[in-house]
Every structure is written in C-alpha cells, then in structure tokens.
C-alpha cells in the first residue's frame, strides 16, 4: 500500500510558518503517513526541482453540506457534485474542508453529505441552540451549560461549537421572557472556566461587531466579511483580532456565488429552510454577485490591507462549491501579485504583497489551528503527511499564478500521492470526518432540555464517527 511507502521529496522550497521556514530549500521525508525524520531508503523520490511546497491546504469555512443545501441544485446553476468538490479541492492542493455548522437534528444529514465527498477530510461544528441552552445563560449555570455543550459535541461528532446568533430573540411577544441578549450571552461565556469548549465560532452577521466582543480569544468569527458593515465594525474587528480573537474571511472575487445566510427577509426565488437554528430566520440560499467595488466586497479587502501579519485570520472560500471553484486561487494570486489586481482591490491593499510564507499561514496553519487540527497545517515531524507542491515561479503573471494555484503540481495526502506532475494519480486517498474527542458525562442527559425537544430519540440522533 502506498501509505506505507517511504517518500522523499527532494529540493523543495518549503514554506512552513509553524517552523519559520520561509522558502528554505529542504528535503521532506514521509513514512507511515506522517512527516518523518530523514531516512536513507525511500521507496519513492519526488524531485520538486525547487518548487514551493507547503502543508496541504485547509478551507476553514465552506458550505459543503448545509441543511437543505442539496435543493439549491435546482435553483442554482453549476453547483458541484460531491465527486467534483473533492477533486477540485485536491486539484488546488487542499486536504481538508470545514462545514461551518450543523444543528443537533441535522447532524446526520450533514455527516452523510460530507461523507460523499472524496479526496479530502472534512469537519463541522454544531450549533448551540439558545432555545434549549439559553436557560442556563439566564440562570448563570455555567457548569450545566458546559455539560450540555460537551454532550452536543460528542453526540454529533462535531469538532466544536457554533453560535449562529449570539442572542435569542423570539418573534412571539409571549416568549419575550426567554430572550437572551448578546450582552448577557457574552458575559456568560466570559465567565466559563471550561476551556475545552472554546473557541466558539460565531457566525459573521451584519451587526455582530457593532459592539466589542469581550474576551475575544474565546471566539472565532466565521465569515468575518459579513460583519464588516461600518467603520465601527471595522475598528472592532481589528481590536478583536489584536486581542487574540480568530476569524476566517472569504474575500470576494467579483464572480457569482451561492450565498448562505440567515436574515429576516424573504426573497422570492430563493431557497429558504427552517433548519432548527435558534433565531426565527430560515437559512437562505441565494445566488448573488457582488461587484468588487461594492460595500459587500471592499471591507474584507480593506481589512486584509490593514491588519498585522501575525493575526489569527484564515482565508476561506465561504460559498458552496460551484463553477470552477477558483475563488481561493484568484484571491491568493491577487494577494501575492499587485500587477494585475483590479483597481478597487489595489486601492484597498495598496502596496501590500503577500509572500508564500504568509499565504501558507492564511491557508494552512491558521485554519488548522482554528479548527483544532493539531496534526495538520504544518510540516513538523509527526504531522500528517499532507504536502502540496506548486509549479509557481516568482515572475509569473496573475493568470499563470491562478492556474498554478488551481492545479497543484503534486499533492500527498496522509503519505499517499494523490497528484503527480500536475495530474491525478490512479489512487483515491482515504477521507474521513474529523471530530473532537471530548469527555462528557452521559448521566447529564437525563436532566437536560437538550434532548426533550427533538422528534428523534437520542439513540437515533447521535452519530457514528469514523476518524483516525
């Protein structure tokens, strides 16, 4: 089996921010599916010829399989099939993609859909339902909340927690006493001592950053771009990141994409699903195209132009995979190359050019850290042997860079060659859903509201895990 073959990648220009390798020419050694110390007897030798190599890419936010998303195939053109998604990621040199969230009830649906995607590993977070868990916030029962949070992660096979809205607001007046304000919620989270449940990812909604988020290092803002709606929010975003907060950001590339959000406005012709998230707004799937000069597009680019390089921010693709899935390569090429940037992007980024070291941090190290994949996103000894090599040259123009980033020269996943010389090899690597091992006390389930409301019994709600 090729996983057991020993591989030596020779003469690669290696970028690994975790080890401060900034283009050093090195050989990489792979044995038993992991990055290894050097050995003399490789079974396979890959001569990288000085090409840049980095850890396999990780997309920290992509609507791969959100609840009801499958129906968007009827209303949206060019949505990719599971096979096409997996291949497209592998072609880009990616080895992992993260589905932002599921709910307790839809975890099975999401898990099934994710399992259909080959080539890459997947993960997802589970949404905290404040309709059930909000009671603990109102009564300040931190331990009870953490118990339920752990149970939620364990039962659904999720990798962490997601908060679609940091508040609960009922439309019905007679439930107003059950409302939970964002202020109260954040105060509550700030006081929690159980570090295992952090970071909690919060969905980037337009009003999220109008006020500062307390204890930023406990949170991760998913799809930060959507929260950058004003000068206040931009300033608060920078403060958030400066104070140790994490975020993923999908930069707009001006092409049509399928947007997934949850706002209190119905649009004819869109897909709108009540998927069990705690605010009374359905998930809305809508095809949009934001020009680069628009208010929806520019703020994200502005932020990238102004933040310090060591901030915990990761680059994501955001939308459900469609078309030729070139958002990340295009955005990356613009970040790397100021020759052919559109004027509006150039105006926001200014002279800023990012090298591969920074790109590796944005697309490998930071996403891995945010998702909680300690063994990925870097090339330290013992890490999973996920290596991507690109046929990139410094003097390449924009279009050639996009092509090179869209079609990696070589990809190794878990020590198995997936792409060689710019083409797919015959074998398809194993792919799995990563989950978090978390301790929890099953006896708490008897005393919690968590399982009172679903129409399914616990035995049929909880899902199996197939990691490692």
């Amino acid at each position, binding site marked *: 089996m090729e996983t057991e073959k020993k591989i030596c990648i020779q003469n690669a220009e290696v970028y690994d921010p975790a080890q401060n390798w900034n283009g050093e020419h090195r050989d990489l050694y792979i044995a038993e599916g992991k990055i290894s110390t050097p050995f003399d007897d490789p079974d396979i030798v890959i001569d990288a010829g000085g090409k840049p190599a980095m850890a396999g890419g990780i997309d920290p936010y992509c609507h791969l399989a959100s*609840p009801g998303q499958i129906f968007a195939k009827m209303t949206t053109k060019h949505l990719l099939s599971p096979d096409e998604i997996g291949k497209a990621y592998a072609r880009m040199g990616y080895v992992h993609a993260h589905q932002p969230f599921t709910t307790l009830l839809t975890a099975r649906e999401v898990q099934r859909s994710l399992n259909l995607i080959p080539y890459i590993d997947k993960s997802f977070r589970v949404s905290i339902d404040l309709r059930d868990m909000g009671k603990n916030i109102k009564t300040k029962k931190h331990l009870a909340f953490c118990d339920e949070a752990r149970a939620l992660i364990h039962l659904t096979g999720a990798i962490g927690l997601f908060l679609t809205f940091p508040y609960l607001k009922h439309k019905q007046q007679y439930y107003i006493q059950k409302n939970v304000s964002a202020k109260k919620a954040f105060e509550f989270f700030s006081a929690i001592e159980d570090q295992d449940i952090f970071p909690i990812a919060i969905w980037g909604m337009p009003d999220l950053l109008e006020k500062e988020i307390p204890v930023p290092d406990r949170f991760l803002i998913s799809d930060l771009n959507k929260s950058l709606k004003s000068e206040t929010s931009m300033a608060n975003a920078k403060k958030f990141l400066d104070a140790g907060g994490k975020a993923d950001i999908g930069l707009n590339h001006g092409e049509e994409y399928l947007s997934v959000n949850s706002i209190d406005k119905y649009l004819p012709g869109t897909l709108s699903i009540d998927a069990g998230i705690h605010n009374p707004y*359905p998930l809305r799937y809508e095809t949009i195209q934001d020009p680069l000069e628009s208010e929806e597009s520019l703020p994200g680019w502005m932020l990238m132009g102004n933040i310090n390089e060591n901030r915990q921010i990761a680059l994501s693709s955001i939308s459900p995979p469609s078309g030729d899935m070139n958002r990340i390569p295009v955005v990356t090429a613009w970040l790397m190359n100021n020759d052919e940037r559109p004027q509006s992007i150039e105006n926001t980024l200014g002279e800023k050019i990012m090298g591969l070291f920074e790109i590796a941090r944005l697309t490998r190290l930071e996403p891995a850290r945010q998702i909680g994949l300690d063994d990925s996103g870097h090339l330290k000894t013992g890490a999973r042997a996920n290596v991507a090599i690109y046929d990139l040259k410094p003097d390449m123009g924009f279009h050639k860079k996009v092509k090179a980033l869209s079609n990696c020269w070589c990809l190794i996943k878990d020590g198995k060659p997936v792409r060689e010389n710019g083409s797919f090899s015959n074998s398809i690597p194993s792919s799995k859903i990563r989950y978090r091992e978390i301790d929890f006390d099953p006896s708490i389930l008897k005393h919690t509201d968590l399982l009172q409301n679903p129409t399914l019994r616990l035995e049929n709600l909880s899902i199996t895990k197939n990691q490692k």
Partner: protein
Amino acid sequence: MSNKKFDRESLESEDTAPSQGSSLSQESFNDFDTDYHSRICTGCNCLCDDVSYYLKKGQMVRTLNLCEIAMKKLRSVTADNRLIPLPPDILSESIDKAAKLLKNNGTPLILGADALDEKGIQTSNDFARQLKGLWLPWGFTGVKRFYECVKLYGWASSLLDEVRDRAETVIFWRADPLDTHHRHLSRYSFFPRGRYTELGNTDRNLAVIADYEAVIEPLCQQFFNIEPDEDIRLIKALMNPAMEPPYEHRDFPILVNSLQRSSYIAIFVDPENTDNETLKTLFEWSESINTSNMKRMVILPLINAGSNIEGFTRISLEHHATGYGFDFSDNKPDNKQGVSEDVDWEMIADKAGSVVMFESGPEGAHRKRLPESLSEKPLIIITPFKQEPLENADITIPVALSGIETDGVFFRADGMPLLSKKIDGMEVNEYPLAHRVLKEILKIY
C-alpha cells in the same frame, strides 16, 4: 401478535423486571425473550423512531407504535403466501433471463427505487445509467410537479420539528395523512406539543382540502370538500379574503381568521392530486405571505410513494440536479438531459421497452395506478412482498425487506437519514438484497 395492553397494576408491581432499553420502568407484558426499542419504521417517510419489537423463539409476539401501514409490511414478511427465496440455481437463471429480457427490449424503465434503501437507490441509478434507461420513482408525476414549482418560485421549507414547534395553522391540501402517513399528525403536524405550540392540537388549527370524505375529516376544524378545479378559486380567496364576490363556504371565515392570527403556516400537499396550476398558485400564495416578512408559510410535499421517496429525491439531486429521476436513454427529444418537462405516464409507457419494478407495499397499490400500456410491457418485479397479483410479471425475484430483514438507510420526509436495522433473531428466510440482484443482472448484461 399479542394484544395485551399495559396494565397499570402490573406497571406498579415490583415483580415485573424492566426490559433493557424500554422506555417504561415496568411492563405487564414479559412473555418474550428478545426485545428491541427505538427502532426506525420504514412503513412511510415519517420514519417513526419509537418502535419496539418483542420476539419469542424467533417469532414476533408484540410491537409498539407501529401504525397499520407498517404492520401490514411487517406481517407480509411472515405471510403464508409470501414468495419463498429462489434457490441459487433458479435465482441465477432468473437473473440471466432478466438480463436478456432487458437487452432485447429497448429502453428499460427502472421504476420505484424509492421503495428501496439508500444502497438500493444508488445502485438502481447506476443500473439505469448503464442500461441507458429511464430511472423514475413511484411518485414521479407528483414529485416532478412539485420540484418544477420549486425551480420556478424558490421554496420555503422546514424540518418537521420546526413545523411541530411553530405551525399554528396546518393545512393538508389533497393529502390525507391518515391514509398515507398514519402517525404524521401525532408526531409532527397536529397533536404533539412543540416549543411554541405547548398545548399541542389546542394551539393549532387544522384544515383539509379534499374532494371526498377523507379519513381525516372528523379531526379537522375546517374541511373543504371541493372539486380539484375549484382549488385555485379557494387559494385566491384565501390570499384575498375581501375579494368580490366573496367565497361562500361555512369554514372559510374561520380559516381566514386562523391564518390571520397565525405567524407560521404549514401546508402539506400531495402534488399527485393537484394539477400544475393549483400547485403554482399555492407557491404564489406562499411567496406572497413570506415576502410580507410578517408571517411564514412553508409548503411540504406529502407524497404517496415509496417510503424512501425523500432518499430518491436527494440522490437524484446529487447526481442529476433534479429531484425526480433521470432519462439516460439516447433517444430524448431535442437531445435534452434529464426528463422532459411535459412527460407523463403515457409518454413513458410509449418510450419504455421493458420495466424493472420495485414493489413498494404488500398490496401493490402504486402499481395499480399505472396506465394499462405500461403494465403490458415485459416486466421484471423485484419485491419483498407476496406474489399476487403478479401474474403478468415475466420474472419475479423475491428480495429481503429493508428495515426488517436487512439494515437500510432511509430518509425522513425532511431529509433526515436514519438507519433502520434488521430485526435480529426473527425467524425468516434468507432473501437476497435488492441492490445485489441489480448488480448481478448488470454483470450478465
């Protein structure tokens, strides 16, 4: 099967040992040696997951929470007139004959894979692709009609849990759950208590539109016994109650009042029993309500088809971006992909040279709805149920019933995939699996 009921005295007795996994601490019934709980029923796409089975010496002696539809399926497993499994040589011969029949008769119609589990549906899609056939579900016309509307109008939909939690007005439009989905009302749409419908049915208003004396009639608050060609007039009147001339029906003002007071409305429609224009008008109504942003109206199909129709729809979408199957044949009009928009059963019958059919229930109810012309085609029936009336089948291959004799993944009406496990220990014959039969036919073809 035992008809013993729970005895309150016995429940309180200390002598009765609790059975493992039982939701009750004590039971009066203890004449069994194996019991299973929280099992998934695959009688319809309600996929009730609170089913219990009790076996004694390999025989089913009691069940809990099975409706009549599911009970009929379960009984068919051990029915005296169920086809016995074909001996290996006969099975081989039948598979061989099936391959030849399909090869010699033009475009095959692969019909009714919505009766199978997920693996069966996936295999049937590959099967149809390789044979360049038509791959369609039992509820084809209704499913197609519904999802064509989705393409035109978009769609406001919901999980069944959200309907249970929020819907204050529930309307069944030419759908009768007490006919097709017996526990729908008690688990999702009318009786159960939800987060915001804490008084259960008291917090809800139930209205039904049907053209016959529906089984559900005694339960609903408003019943519109009208002909299908009057549907559009009713919908338009509900959209605009003040219109002239006013809509005259004794239940109309109450339904209007209920809709006005409701913040969340759920319509369950059987698209096979409505025409295109009615369904479009329902979608228009939903769109107008939702656009106001004051209320929400969701439209959900309640289709009388195979119990895995939702699984079929999703797998069809995954592969073909349509929810109602695919036409893999070469001779499509205008060289179009998929199934043409205006196709109906008669046109399908014209095109199909042979039929591979997956039986969906013990009484063959869906098959009886097919046009005569289709029934006359060379026919292969793959079925876990009893034989009659299969006299016009050229080849019949008995297979295992998923969810009872074999594990299988089925999809609930709102897309929840659930594993329905085999009932271990039940004394049944060993039947081949449907998806394996298809693979064997393909090998020879």
